[in-house]
């Protein structure tokens, strides 16, 4: 990798980061919230890019990891007084990691389309459980809870404002991005990419492909769970709709629109999708999915690389 391309990448990275840091200070209330939300959905999409873009497995079950992150955080925030931010993270991540282990163990036995269908059905299992287990999950009504304070025990404790919440989310997403980027460039990430390119050959060289796939699904599920915890903290409610497979579908739409295998592409895709939704729902209300769906199909046919696909090589350097 050349020094110049490297410098270009970090300049771009810092520029975008700076824009996102300043964003809440200049944007009106509504758009402030909107940008925060884009970051959270972007993190979810980025987590699934590990599977779609780098390992070549399309997961239709990310709503399960995301939803369990939300419900895990909800449990922590409802059971402990006063609500503790870090406990919410712990519960959410443990819940989504447990689900990810379960799903990974079964679904990685299958490839391609079968993997997609199996993950889809697994996410529906969790949806049915959450929907019908009213005593614990609140069933159809979901759970509402209050937002914890941003606190480090013994040091300080501040209630979240919309500014600090945005910066907090931005910090988590940025750290996640850098971690995932580092992972994709590590030897482990290289093995994942070689599974994508040629699974049989990777196995023949001697890598335990199944084990790598299980770890990839778990890693992806863990970051999806992280997105779920952030979403719980931002919106202060959990609902079974977040576990429904349409959320997984949206995650895939973000990936395809933004460009898979780039990590930042999915965030751009989430931004693009949410902007389209915002624009179309102004005059089509809930039927915005008709034009958005058509745009999505057109992008699959005419622009399979997505918005940022042309930068793929550069972003992975």
């Amino acid at each position, binding site marked *: 990798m050349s020094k110049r391309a490297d410098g270009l990448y970090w300049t771009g990275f810092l520029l975008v980061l700076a824009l996102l840091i300043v964003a809440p200070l200049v944007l009106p209330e509504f758009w402030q919230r909107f940008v925060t939300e884009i970051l959270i959905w972007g993190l979810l999409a980025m987590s699934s890019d590990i599977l779609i873009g780098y390992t070549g497995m399309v997961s239709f079950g990310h709503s399960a990891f995301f939803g369990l992150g939300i419900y895990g955080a909800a449990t922590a925030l409802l059971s402990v007084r006063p609500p503790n931010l870090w406990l919410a993270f712990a519960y959410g991540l443990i819940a989504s990691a447990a689900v990810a282990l379960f799903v990974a163990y079964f679904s990685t036995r299958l490839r391609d389309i079968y993997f997609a269908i199996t993950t889809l059905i697994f996410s529906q299992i969790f949806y*049915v459980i959450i929907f019908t287990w009213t005593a614990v999950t609140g069933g159809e009504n979901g759970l509402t809870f209050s937002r914890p304070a941003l606190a480090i025990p013994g040091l300080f404790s501040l209630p979240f404002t919309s500014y600090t919440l945005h910066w907090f989310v931005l910090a988590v997403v940025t750290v996640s991005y850098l971690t995932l980027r580092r992972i994709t460039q590590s030897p482990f990430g290289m093995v994942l990419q070689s599974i994508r390119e040629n699974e049989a050959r990777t196995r023949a060289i001697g890598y335990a492909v199944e084990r790598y796939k299980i770890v990839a699904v778990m890693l992806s599920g863990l970051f999806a769970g992280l997105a779920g915890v952030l979403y719980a903290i931002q919106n202060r409610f959990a609902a079974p709709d977040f576990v429904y497979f349409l959320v997984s579908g949206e995650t895939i739409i973000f990936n395809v629109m933004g460009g898979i295998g780039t990590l930042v592409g999915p965030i751009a895709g989430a931004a693009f999708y949410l902007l389209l939704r915002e624009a179309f729902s102004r005059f089509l209300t809930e039927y915005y999915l008709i034009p958005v769906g058509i745009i999505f199909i057109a992008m699959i046919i005419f622009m399979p690389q997505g918005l940022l696909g042309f930068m793929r090589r550069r972003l992975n350097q």
Partner: protein
Amino acid sequence: MELVTEVLHAIPYDQILIQTLNGIVAGMILALVASGLTLIFGIMDVVNFAHGELFMLGAYVGVVIIAATGNFWLALIVATVVVAALGAALQITTLRPLLGRDPLTTILATFGLSLVLQNYALWQFGPVARKIQEPFTGSFSIFYLQYPWYRVLIAVLSAAIIGGFWLFLKYGTYGIWIRATTQDRVMAQAMGIPVPWVHTAVFAIGAGMAAASGVLFAPLVGVTHAMGLDWVLKAFIVVVVGGMGNLGGSIAASIFISLIESYASIWLDPAQAVIVSFVVLILTLLFRPTGLFVPTPK
């Protein structure tokens, strides 16, 4: 001994009989939906996520035709033809350009289609469930319950459609074209079979079958824009359990899973009975990842 007789008395025979009937009826409808899905997959490697929406649109076309003419059978035929034509149009516009690309792109494209179709139905017909009247209301009695003849007719009609289609595949000239394309796309093309049009025709046939099952099933539950989702998920389970692209396997798996769900609903809430079929799927994946109803691969 006493324990045995007690257990034997505790078994609800009447309910089991009725649930067996219900299971077979639901299984035949599911088989009609799933055979279209598995056919489309077997021939062009397309996992049709929009299949449930074709089922739902079929039911809505049925509602419209019945409102206009009052004739259920006319509605069944018109819905099948209209949705088959729609299927052909969708295949030409969205799936044909994807031919030769990774099969995973087709699952994404048809997922997009399903979003569009579902919201179109919501927009056009509104969120209130529509009702289709049963074409006749006779019933026969088993134990203390009246069992409607219409349900029996659904099972028979579905079996007839699947059977007719199987005969067509086996003996019809175009049926042989379809089987040839399944076996070897390139060779079929070389023999002068218009492969792209075979694809379109198969998609249309699958869509028509989904629409027919939608109309047949609508009197039992009512028609809503979201009715297709349950069915496409169930059909996915069926094609995985039955072995993807395997027509006989999907039919066997449809009846198997519907029966199990029916029996489970004697003791469980219907919403939870779905979990039983998920469990069947997990067990299948553990022990027979290629499908329950296919010969053991070498």
